[in-house]
């Protein structure tokens, strides 16, 4: 039982929050507010690269509040706050998770240069939350740091888009840095409904596995956490300035990571 609880520390799906990774910036002079809930759960995990079963399902509910401001046609800032409720067997914790504060700068506009995609640079600060680490229901790794990424997108037609992101993240407290990649295709099937499908991956630069050489429980944040996620989503225009977004994702493979199912719902409104 103790061993299983220890494993859960690393598998608690660190909720390093991040604001929307879109290459297309908010409307200049506008504010967009979003509220969301994401439920993630799983009872399988990869310890290193060996797949194993947990004694109980790990469940996390993340409540998020995001704000984006379009300062100019080329520059925007955003922030996202999260509160996470985590449960694993008899253990539980609820706390503020990591917060992000970010800025995006669009350097190439596809609508001014028809042959190019939109290219946007992004920088994010990560502020660790007030959750405990080193315990079974730890919500995250407990580190602060920063992220840099390049976002690329193209409207192949007004109703069909493709976009992606490549990024690098670094945090303190001996947490391994990682790279991530993301690609999405979106298609508007109706004047009020659009669908998306995508894939994202994270590759940690660490080399420590759960239960591997040199591993101790206190080093859970230092373990290598890789993940491959497939995802689909739908968005419905509920009002002229508000949409309802429904999302599903699944962690299909990983390293020192839970194979979780992810369900999300959010409301986004602009003013």
């Amino acid at each position, binding site marked *: 039982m103790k061993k299983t609880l220890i494993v859960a520390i690393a598998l608690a799906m660190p*909720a390093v929050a991040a604001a929307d990774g*879109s290459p297309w910036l908010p409307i200049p002079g*506008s504010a967009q507010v979003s509220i969301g809930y994401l439920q993630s759960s799983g009872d399988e995990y990869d310890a290193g690269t060996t797949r194993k079963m947990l004694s109980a399902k790990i469940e996390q509910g*993340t409540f998020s509040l995001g704000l984006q401001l379009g300062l100019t046609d080329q520059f925007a800032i955003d922030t996202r706050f999260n509160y996470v409720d985590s449960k694993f067997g008899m253990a539980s914790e609820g706390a503020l998770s990591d917060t992000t504060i970010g800025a995006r700068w669009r350097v190439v506009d596809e609508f001014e240069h*028809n042959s190019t995609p939109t290219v946007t640079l992004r920088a994010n600060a990560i502020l660790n939350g007030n959750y405990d680490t080193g315990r079974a229901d730890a919500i995250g790794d407990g580190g602060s740091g920063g992220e840099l990424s390049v976002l690329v*997108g193209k409207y192949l037609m007004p109703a069909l888009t493709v976009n992606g992101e490549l990024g690098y993240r670094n945090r303190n407290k001996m947490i391994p840095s990682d790279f991530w990649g993301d690609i999405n295709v*979106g298609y508007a099937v109706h004047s009020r409904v659009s669908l998306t499908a995508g894939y994202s991956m994270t590759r940690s630069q660490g080399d420590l596995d759960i239960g591997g050489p040199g591993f101790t429980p206190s080093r859970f944040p230092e373990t290598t956490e890789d993940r491959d996620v497939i995802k689909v989503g739908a968005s419905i*225009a509920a009002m002229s300035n508000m949409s309802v977004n429904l999302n599903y994702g699944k962690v299909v493979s990983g390293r020192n990571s839970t194979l979780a199912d992810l369900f999300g719902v959010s409301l*986004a409104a602009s003013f």
Partner: protein
Amino acid sequence: MTLRLIGKVGLAIALPLLASTAFASGSDSFGGQSSEQAQYNTGKAVYAQKLACPSCPLAGKTLDKMLAEQLLSDPSLTAKLANDERAPLATYLRKRFKL
């Protein structure tokens, strides 16, 4: 035919999820953008791809507030657009030039 159908069907709202269904920055975070934001982006695409492309009626013209007002007030300038293309175009022009 397929391309035409896509263009007809889906333009009043432009893919509010797009990148935002991604686990942004590699984390567990579903985002989402508002329908108005989506329309704005689609409106930009409609203008660039349907009105200002090299073979389009407004090729080579600079989009400024005056031209935006003309596009909003003169139906003949947008006569070749589908109905579900005009709404996002109008959202884009009004928001971009505060009309």
